């Protein structure tokens, strides 16, 4: 009896394991199917479209949540592999880092979808918009679950193609110009990345992502370090375009012409994140942190990241357009991630990785709020935000939380990132990075606090105007992410909190 029961349990376990191993493919397909269902929908069928969107997003969040315990706690690595070309497989695999990124994009996608439905209410071409929106998320999930370089590349390029129509969505000459520039930058970046990937594959064979680096790449680095370095530069250079590393960041401030949900997508959920996520993958899972260190490529990367952090903040200071200011802030903030992973320290790596999530939550809050200001009262410029605290209290409160997080003040998520990075910097050989962090904090405060003060404390005695009804579909996501910003900071040490998972990932990186 006992054995029979055990067999039954075993087979049950097997079945569950079988289901779990299919989940990565299912998750990629969910949004693909959603996209396929949305494209042909008639413009007026708002209900159906919203239902498809929200259902797909919610299912994805649930699936990510279901994957967390087995992947993080039990060490299961669900994997789907299918042949793409002879000798090259399309591999989808879930490891903690993948889940981390997928979780971020799944949750934020749900919120962004709700926001976008409210934001675009009554505007034309919504089926097209949401179709590409879903495609974008398909690509993002694909990027996060990619188990090897080729798969990553495929989804990475898909993301480029799927975001172009979103940036150009408004169809105005300005939007088209921005979209063209965006495409030029990202396609060139994609080409450089492709060159690097093809070269690396030629020399080292198909590269599987592995904790601590791929062996074949390590051998290549041993045999011909110059070539390995050159390929590294190509890979990072290609990814650096989306990650908005200076001087490859030019498209990002231009792309703010897109509708607010797209900006949220670009800055927090998908595009910029895909770039840095790729850099994390290259450094940690393709080359491996030790090989990269031996090649001597980490310190230059660190310097580039540091320059980006400071430069982005400096440029943000002078922007009078709110969204442009936020865009430059993204340039600066995203490089924290690169800063973290290139310091060769476990605490710093955890800090960098956790900032992937933290920056996403905080920046999306700010873009949601900026969109709300623009949509409700037509406020685009920083100086026009004066006195909005009275008229749109919830939005302003959410914005304040996001800004406080960006400055890195406790008890928000930004503080946790900054603390980890600071501790890491001091533990590593690069204690000067602490100076960069401090300087960046001050600059962040210098360009965010004036907005906050303007919101709540109008200097002139002019009447601020009557309170405005904030559209609920827009406000709920903004307030939710603002709450996340605080909660993620407050509960940073709880099990399965982003910081915990990031620490777990960092342990994997350092073996």
């Amino acid at each position: 009896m006992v054995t029979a029961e055990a067999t039954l349990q075993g087979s049950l376990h097997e079945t569950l394991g079988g289901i779990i191993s299919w989940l990565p493919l299912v998750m990629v397909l969910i949004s693909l199917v959603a996209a396929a269902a949305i494209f042909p929908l008639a413009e007026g069928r708002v209900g159906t479209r919203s239902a498809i969107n929200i259902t797909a997003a919610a299912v994805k969040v649930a699936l990510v949540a279901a994957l967390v315990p087995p992947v993080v706690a039990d060490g299961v690595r669900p994997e789907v592999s299918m042949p793409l070309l002879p000798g090259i497989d399309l591999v989808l695999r879930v490891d903690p880092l993948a889940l981390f990124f997928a979780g971020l994009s799944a949750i934020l996608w749900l919120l962004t979808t709700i926001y976008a439905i409210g934001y675009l209410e009554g505007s034309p071409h919504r089926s097209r918009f949401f179709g590409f929106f879903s495609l974008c998320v398909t690509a993002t999930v694909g990027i996060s679950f990619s188990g090897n370089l080729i798969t990553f590349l495929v989804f990475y390029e898909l993301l480029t193609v799927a975001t172009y129509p979103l940036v150009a969505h408004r169809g105005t000459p300005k939007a088209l110009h921005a979209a063209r520039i965006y495409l030029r930058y990202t396609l060139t970046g994609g080409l450089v990345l492709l060159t690097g990937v093809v070269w690396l594959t030629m020399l080292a064979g198909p590269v599987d992502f592995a904790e601590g680096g791929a062996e074949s790449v390590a051998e290549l680095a041993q045999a011909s370090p110059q070539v390995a370095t050159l390929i590294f530069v190509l890979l990072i250079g290609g990814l650096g375009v989306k990650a908005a590393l200076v001087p490859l960041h030019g498209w990002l401030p231009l792309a703010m012409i897109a509708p607010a949900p797209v900006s949220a997508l670009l800055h927090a959920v998908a595009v910029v994140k895909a770039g840095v996520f790729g850099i994390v993958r290259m450094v940690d899972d393709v080359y491996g942190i030790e090989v990269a260190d031996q090649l001597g490529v980490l310190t230059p990367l660190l310097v580039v990241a540091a320059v980006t952090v400071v430069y982005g903040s400096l440029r943000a200071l002078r922007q009078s357009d709110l969204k442009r200011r936020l865009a430059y802030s993204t340039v600066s903030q995203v490089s924290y991630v690169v800063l973290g992973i290139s310091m060769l320290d476990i605490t710093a790596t955890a800090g960098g990785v956790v900032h992937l999530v933290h920056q996403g939550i905080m920046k999306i809050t700010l873009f949601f709020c900026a969109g709300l200001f623009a949509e409700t009262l037509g406020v685009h410029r920083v100086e026009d935000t004066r006195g909005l605290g009275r008229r749109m209290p919830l939005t302003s409160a959410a914005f304040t939380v996001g800004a406080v997080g960006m400055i890195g003040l406790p008890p928000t998520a930004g503080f946790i990132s900054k603390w980890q990075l600071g501790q890491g910097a001091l533990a590593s050989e690069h204690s000067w990075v602490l100076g960069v962090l401090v300087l960046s904090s001050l600059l962040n405060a210098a360009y965010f606090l004036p907005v906050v003060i303007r919101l709540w404390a109008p200097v002139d005695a002019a009447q601020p105007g009557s309170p405005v009804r904030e559209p609920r579909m827009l406000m709920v996501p903004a307030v939710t992410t603002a709450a996340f910003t605080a909660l993620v900071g407050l509960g940073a040490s709880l099990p399965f909190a982003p910081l915990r998972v990031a620490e777990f990932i960092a342990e994997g990186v350092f073996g």
Partner: protein
Amino acid sequence: MLLLLCCALPLLLGGLLLAGRALPEPHRGQVTTTAARLAPFAALPALILPVAARGGPEQSAVEVPGLLLGTSLILDETSRPLVVLTALLHAAALATIAWRPAPGPRDRSLPMPVLSAFLLLCLGGTLGVFLAADLVTFYVAFAVMSFAAAGLVIHHLDRAAVRATRVYLVLSVLSETALLAAVLMVGAAGGLRLAESPAAVVGSDHTGLILALLGFGLGIKAGVVPLHLWLPLAHPAAPPAASAVLSGALVTAGLLGFLRFSPEVAQPGAGAALMVVAAAGGLFAVAVGVLQTDPKVVLAYSTVSQMGLVTAVAAVAVVEPSLAGKVTAAVVVYAVHHGLVKGALFLAVPLLSAGGSRLVRGAVAAGTLLAGLSLVGAPLTTGWAAKYATKDAVAADAPALESVLPFFALGSALLMVRLVRVLPAAGARNARNPGAGPLGAWAVIVLGGAAVPWWMAASSPEVSTPGFDAAAVGEGLWPPAVAAVLSVVAILVGHRISPPAVPAGDLVVPAESAVAQATDATDRGLRTLGRAADSAAEAWRQGWSRAAAAARALGQRADSGLEDWIRSGAVLLALLAAGSLLVLIGSGGGGG
């Protein structure tokens, strides 16, 4: 558990009050006003705690591993009296604003529940600073306190309040950043527990830098000249109840930082620098303060002066770590005395100009007089005891400082005289009864100020209390006496010469213009940078566009020649034939 409740209850209630502002209108007012009326009770756990937790530090410690980066709180002998001070002051402030008989005149000010909420957050933060057992908690609580206090300063939303808030926020951000850098370095050196921090400060590679950053960051909060800029602006701008909290509790948090991080190995340079700067600044504040006309500004300068004194005393522990125990005890007694007395004075400002029965007005005047005398250090008051304790603590190792201390008492006396002079001009007396709430709260603080420090001094083995000998009494009497004489002279001479007018916030004005100029310069620099970067990017972009256009044109020209089907067909055929002939020749040559 009670320990956690101390901090958590005010923070939660404050957060809920703010969140309650999101309710739709008919409910919002009722719910939040009712909650705000209950707010003073949020300080109860903190009042019970020092009495209830009589055991050793082991019993009165709590760990919350999941919160932030792991949170731990502890109640030790240093923090015990400070918790009482904070709880009392905040409870009084909350009661003053929430238990008023009727809401004040409707102006642009934020609603009462919002003020209560910020007071509650401030209370939670300040208690957190006092009770923190680890660096992160200390830093987080410090930040919560600092930024919640911004909500107090901005309350009236008028021009002065906004200016004060801006100055306060700028200084707070600088303070927080300096503190973060210092705290990170201390943490990296292994001092994540506050108990180990002093050793880590010494053990770190960057001891000098840490000390400088700590001095800067904490000095701003403690109001050490020249980092005191926010105090004289914030106090008149904030409501009196909030000023009481700012002056009594907030600055003490900065002071506690000095005590907590005071290194175990002597740092004579840093200590002496702090001592000199603090003491000189304290006397400078007196000089500026006596020229002010707003009673709350006078009180603010009094605070700056007193904090200078007590910081200078605390600096003795940096110079001579062996004295740390004695100095800390004395500083804490002084801080509690000053906090309560200053709180009583601030709370008295609106009461003095309010109406009420003759009895009430008499009581208010008497209480204020008592607080004033206490601040000056008149015999039998708590000021007398506190000043004696500090004098005794520093006598052995800092004779220079000891000789300066009486001048602070003189300064306080002068400021009090000035206060009496400017009070009547401060505002038209309104006939309204101040109400039982504010009056009761004020009375509690006055009585607390007269009793608690005495009790503390008596119960602590480290603190020496003055005996009733002639020397001690004389020490307490001469400053007010000299001040009285000087004041009479000043009043007589004052008609002839007009004293120089120093704006409230003294150095703020030049600092502001300097900052404005610096901002302008930075702005210009940034504009240049931006223009250069943008034009470089634009040139790059246009270069590519031109290249692309040229390539397109070239292709088009080649293409248009072949556009005609027949022509291109002919070319193709010719090429094909020529290629074939080549093949023929090639293979023929190779041997068919």
